[in-house]
């Protein structure tokens, strides 16, 4: 349960994170809460060459709520959404689902977008996102686009071997 050696990049600007992602490609993994990635590193199930920590990127920790939509930044912890004012009235399904995710300790660290990006088929947040016909904003160095949850998630479902099963 000790990770293989990897480089660690704590990105200060989003462009920096995107540059490293572009250079390292599939060998890079994004760290955003680490409730799945860190155990996978420790079990050597994930062996990235570089881990890019995005938790200090400016602006990614914001939650924006308007007219029946909620926009959650990539560095927003699950706990912050759970405690967001008026979540029950604005996003009742999300509010109902959040307490079922892991436990308080993992929600304190885990991010909403991290769970969506990991796309475990048994996880609550990807399911909620599909049920609500949500969208994911995806960025690379070249462009930014929006993908509907249903087409984002199936494509990125990890193979069964990616979990412990």
């Amino acid at each position, binding site marked *: *349960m*000790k990770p*293989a*050696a990897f480089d660690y990049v704590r990105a200060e600007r989003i462009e920096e994170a995107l540059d490293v992602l572009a250079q390292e490609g599939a060998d890079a993994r994004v760290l955003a809460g680490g409730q799945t990635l860190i*155990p996978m590193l420790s*079990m*050597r199930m994930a062996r990235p060459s570089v881990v890019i920590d995005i938790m200090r990127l400016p602006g990614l920790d914001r939650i924006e709520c308007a007219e029946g939509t909620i926009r959650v930044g990539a560095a927003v912890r699950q706990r912050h959404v759970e405690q967001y004012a008026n979540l029950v009235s604005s996003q009742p399904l999300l509010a109902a689902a959040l307490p079922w995710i892991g436990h308080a300790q993992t929600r304190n660290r885990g991010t909403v977008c991290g769970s969506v990006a990991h796309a475990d*088929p048994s996880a609550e947040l990807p399911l909620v996102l599909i049920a609500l016909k949500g969208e994911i904003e995806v960025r690379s160095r070249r462009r930014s686009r929006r993908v509907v949850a249903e087409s984002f998630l*199936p494509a990125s*479902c990890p193979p069964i071997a990616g979990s*412990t*099963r």
Partner: protein
Amino acid sequence: MTADREDAAIRHGATGWVGRSILRFEDAALLTGRGRYLDDLGTLPGTFEAAILRSPHAHAEIEAIDCEAARTADGVAAVLTGADVIALTSSLVVGVKAPLECWPIAVDRVRYVGEPVAIVVASDRYRAEDAIDLIEVRYRPLPAVVDPAAAATVDSPLLHPAINSNVVGERTFRYGDPERAFAEAAHRVRVDVRYPRNSCTPIETYGIIAEYDAGEDAYDVLANFQGPFSLHPVVARALKVPGNRLRLRTPPDSGGSFGVKQAIFPYIVLMAVAARVAGRPVKWIEDRLEHLCASVSATNRVTMLEAAVDRDGRIMALDFDQLEDCGAHLRAPEPATLYRMHGNLTGAYDIRHVKIRNRVVLTNKTPTGLNRGFGGPQAYYPLERLVQRIAVELKFDPLDVIRRNLVPASAMPYRTATGALLDSGDFAAALEGAVRDGGLADLMARRNAARAEGKHYGVGFAAIVEPSVSNMGYITAALTPEERRRAGPKNGAQSTATVSLDPLGTVTVQVASTPQGQGHRTVLAQVIADALGLKPRDVRVVADVDTAKDAWSIASGNYSSRFAPAVAGTARLAALNLRDRLARVAATLLNVSPADIVFTDGRVAARSNPDNSLPFSRLAASGHWAPGTLPADLGQTIRETVFWTPPQLTAPTDADEVNSSLCHGFIFDFCGVEIDPTSGTVRLDRYVTMHDCGSILHPAMVTGQICGGFAQALGAALYEEYAYADDGSFLCGTFADYLVPTAMEVPEPIVLHRESPSPFTPLGAKGVGEGNCMSTPVCIANAIADALSLNAIDLPATPAKLAAHLHGPEPARATTSRRYA
């Protein structure tokens, strides 16, 4: 709650410290993070750390291992494979007469996922794991077998080609005249049960620090081993040293064990050899993945059990066919799980005719070993399911079937058909007390009301005896009487305790009970305080073991719920011996007769004239400062060690009667469950558990044992299974896959007590640590069967399983789904 019980203890006439729920001495350190667990203890400078390469295959030949890159990697001191280990060791001894070898590391072949294949010793664990990655192993996969029934067939893949079958032990037993009882029976009732694999998963995993002294050719090992210390000779033999050249020590604290830390012993061999090869001490801390995958498991068992039943629901005879799955190797003390319950296989019932066929089979799974309840859940699940089936099939109230079959109080002590001597108890009175004080009538009313609303609500029962203080000879029932005669008798269970007085006249107690959080030190202080007229705080208790310095024997350790009945009682005997000698010294000093001496409130006084007294500490110190003043025939008054083995623990007879345990507590449980009609989730509405564990030494700790066992049993009933795929791959490598109930899932049971002191133990106490692991899984299963009118149910009763009962099997999955396209 604690205060109530303290009052109750006083009402019951407890005048001393024993019987009161005093605060535990252990807790101040444990609750503030100051426990001294193995990984907290310092190591010598230069100590290496080890990591283990484990098999990814359930069954494969090892064609080649290339360790060259690992050997030259940064920080690596040594790499060991099976060939290196067998060069310095012998096979671990095996408990059946078969040409089986049992190595702690794979030799030429792997037989379960997680089996050690190589060990890397390096300057730290990171480098050791990095080097593990560099080892190239070429495997030739073989067909695996995980199902015990399939493994027992002639065309199964063979695990150990040296023997021609995976069935490595088979014995049949016959008591009374079962054939006639079945021929004359009004009814026959049968259950078929598959008891699953599970484990008690202590929060602290295995840990070892091993050293080799080349000058002495001796090993010194510190390990969070829990006993039994019968494994000390097993390890010494494997390391090819005399027993006096294996010093085995345990740390002051151990983070839970529940039997599981018995099975650390193969790793003790591995790390001892690693230290020898590396030339420096080696430390190894097992990680959680290793622990779940490859430490140890309880056995899974396939049982067919049939009863001959008369018109009134009396069970006249039982016919057992037990197929025990011990995993890939038969590790000591297996097949003990199968035989631990042999004497009390008829449970709490008076059944005189019994037939048993026992088979032990090996499969491509982790080897098995001790686990809380050890053999109890596997044996009582079929028995208590059978009792419920008798009630259903004969249309009796299940409670009446239990009542009609209980061993009557007038028969105590009662010799069972298979040889156990049930020591004491009034089972019927305990049952009626539970029915009354546990509110069974109210629970039945809840069932009726729930069912009237269309809900799935059921009530289950279980009545069992809880054995404690194992007879070290019971395991030889795996051998035939002829084989036993050749091997020589094995019996008994030596407990040890040492009470010593230092030059300031204070008292230290040392025992070899290796506690893992239970509170042994507190209870021993109470026991000794009572014996010597002191306060518990005055008594220092040392419970870590050093085989080079302490009194110990093969029965030492923490298992078979032996602390209260055996260890605490032995400590009392040692204190009383010392007290009687001190009384003679005091009699001289106070000029009265020894019979007139009393020990009370920290003083030693003449009963007839309490003013004629001296401080206990002065008397206790006199053996150091003025030995010349002691009566010449008295001997020393400094240190007293008592070895105690109960005479009732005799060797198995030629008729295979086995008194497998010294004490037999009684448990009667009932519960109500409601099943969610959509999801199949079980909600435990109420759980009542009545215990008679003899004299209660510390009521709060007894409740703690009961609640802890209950929580683990709830896990076994509803959540936990060490599941394997058909190809032998392990499916439960994390706690996300192996679900352990948390505080949120465990309701508080209603705990009731009776106290029928054991006539066989010094304090009248019986064991209480394992009972609910034996009674609760089947009690919950009986309730679920009642709720859903199921004829058969296997654990764990997961929502998916119960939903299939409720809704029928799920429709086949659409194959055109885009998801994985």
